[in-house]
């Protein structure tokens, strides 16, 4: 599942970041700001009509991402304890 498809305010775990062919540097940028495998992530807010930008909480910080950037991040559901 990609981060642009998840439900709001539900915690997921990052499993991978895939950059598009044209812009490989974006993977590193996303990793630098905290989108690393295992990190907790939740989409807190979307723009009007569910489009971007998204307000995403990763770890303890909050970032604004565009839809295209959110799509690069693959996430897994966190199993209920």
């Amino acid at each position, binding site marked *: 599942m990609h981060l642009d498809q998840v439900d709001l305010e539900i915690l997921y775990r990052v499993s991978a970041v895939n950059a*598009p062919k*044209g*812009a490989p*540097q*974006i993977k*590193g*940028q*996303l*990793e*630098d*700001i*905290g989108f*690393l*495998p*295992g*990190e*907790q992530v939740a989409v*807190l*807010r979307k*723009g*009007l009509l569910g*489009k*971007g*930008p998204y*307000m995403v*909480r990763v*770890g*303890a*910080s*909050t*970032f*604004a*991402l*565009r839809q*295209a*950037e959110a799509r690069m991040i693959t996430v897994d559901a966190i199993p209920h304890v």
Partner: protein
Amino acid sequence: MSESKVHFFSNEPLVALLGNPNCGKTALFNLLTGSRQKVANYSGVTVERKEGRLSLESGKNIRILDLPGAYSLYPRSLDERVTCNVLLGRAEGEKRPDLVICVLSAMNLRRNLRLVLAAKRLGLPCIVVLNMLDIAKRQGLHIDTAALSSELGLPVLTSIGIQSNGADEIKQFLSNLDWRNLNGLRTGTSDATLENVASHIAHTESDNIQVQKILQNLNLDQIIPDQLSDRLDAVLLHPVFGPIILVALLFCIFQAVFSWATVPMDLIKSAVDFLGAQIVEVLPNGWIRSLLINGILAGLGGVVIFLPQILILFFFILLLEESGYLPRAAYLLDRVMGSVGLSGRSFIPLLSSFACAIPGIMATRSISNARDRMVTILIAPMMTCSARLPVYALLISAFIPEQKLWAGIDLQGLVLFLLYLAGILGAMAVAWILKRFTSEQFRMNALMMELPSYHLPRLGNLAISLWQRAEIFLRRVGGIILLMTIGLWVLSSFPFPLEGATGSPIQYSFAGMMGQALAHVFSPIGFNWQISIALVPGMAAREVVVSSLATVYALSSSSVDAADALIPLISNGWSLATALSLLAWFVFAPQCLSTIAAVKRETGGWKIPIIMLSYLFGLAYIASFITYHLAIYLGLG
């Protein structure tokens, strides 16, 4: 602000503050150095360099350098490149720091700790400072500093960036430090090299695992969200109310710029009048008196009077920045910016351009997409910089009646708002056109912008930043503006008119001749020769136009008081159509020489500045032409 050139004390130890953006590093820097700061640029690049001095209890002085915030030590933007170069001792004209203080936000240890691990690899002596400990405690986060210290193998101090004694522990530590032998704080090997792509990827992975382990050992592996920020965001970032609040806020700011500034502006005006009267009493009538009153006093007085407005605008920008609202405004505007091919990231440089295009153009360095950065630089000068405020303020006071419209909104403030809006719409149109010319593959623009927690801004920090702005403005007044003013006075005073000449003396001077020649170019858009003269030195700095008009008019009338009365002079002398046309000119007119120089330096060549000059000149001429003829058609001529 102490004017001491801290650079010259090169034998004093240099301590660099390193940290993620938004970790409270600058507040801590202010606490450590107080007002003993010097703001300049790093050599060769327009990245702001902040250095300050700290006198330790032991009597020793040290230099503290506030490095640009970085997420990693693998440079992705110009800002981060400077940080890396300084740490590696590769920055031109910089000494390699003797000690690095890694500032961590206690609220975001995970990301911040990765930077500490990267810094340790550099082989520089390091200490760690846990900042924002007060917020962490309030939210129930207990960090065992002793345990963290043994995990990292480095001393860990704590600080509270928003308390006046919040940095005492750091001061104490630095005071007790043996500066001759810092090897105990050095953990890595000292083969300092810049990370390459492969090593950075490997380090990211291993650092991540190590940080996870540290956090687990410290029992800090849970995330506590900042609930206050989340509650505020529910309103401020609401898809409907958010944008409404933003527009209302910006509107109030512009109203305040005009209404709050009246009292200090009147004070400055009376002071200038008083000085003029003193000079008249002391000096005999002659060219020295003319230079002092008509040249220098009229010129500089006409510019300094706008300092209050500039400071009020900066005050609000700094307030929004400190509180954490500014990136949220960018978030709200991302969609709009996206429609013209930019991202929300361009918003902050563009907003800074309202104060001055130069810091705005400098702020574009945080935009990682090269194409976005170029477009942002090209349109930045269309944001109404504070240097244009004097011109707007003069024309609005002279031609727009002081009148209350509905709901307490005043007409003058409304016109000012419309002028700002015209610049914004013009900029968006240009960006939209440029988007048409960009091929699809360059359009991948990233937002990836941090939305920090909200903070109550601290007055001390605001005061320091505001003072730095005022200093830069006054330095310009004392430097380039003074020079231009004197130059223009010379041009407008010599040669003297021939015996028996009938017009005012300035018409026979060099400036008069130039103005009359330029008037041919500008008469289709309604500018008279006085305006045409003033536009020439206005290229040096826009606010000079006001001082030039003051000088031109002071000299073209016989009375000494003319300098004090520019407003009635032009409101009687110009038609409303001319005034509106000049306003339209200034919305788009080519920017000052310093902006062009900044663009050249930032883009590394003459191509972009020349494109910028020509398109802005064309746009300004067309806008003024349409405005002038429309106004005449409507009977305002």
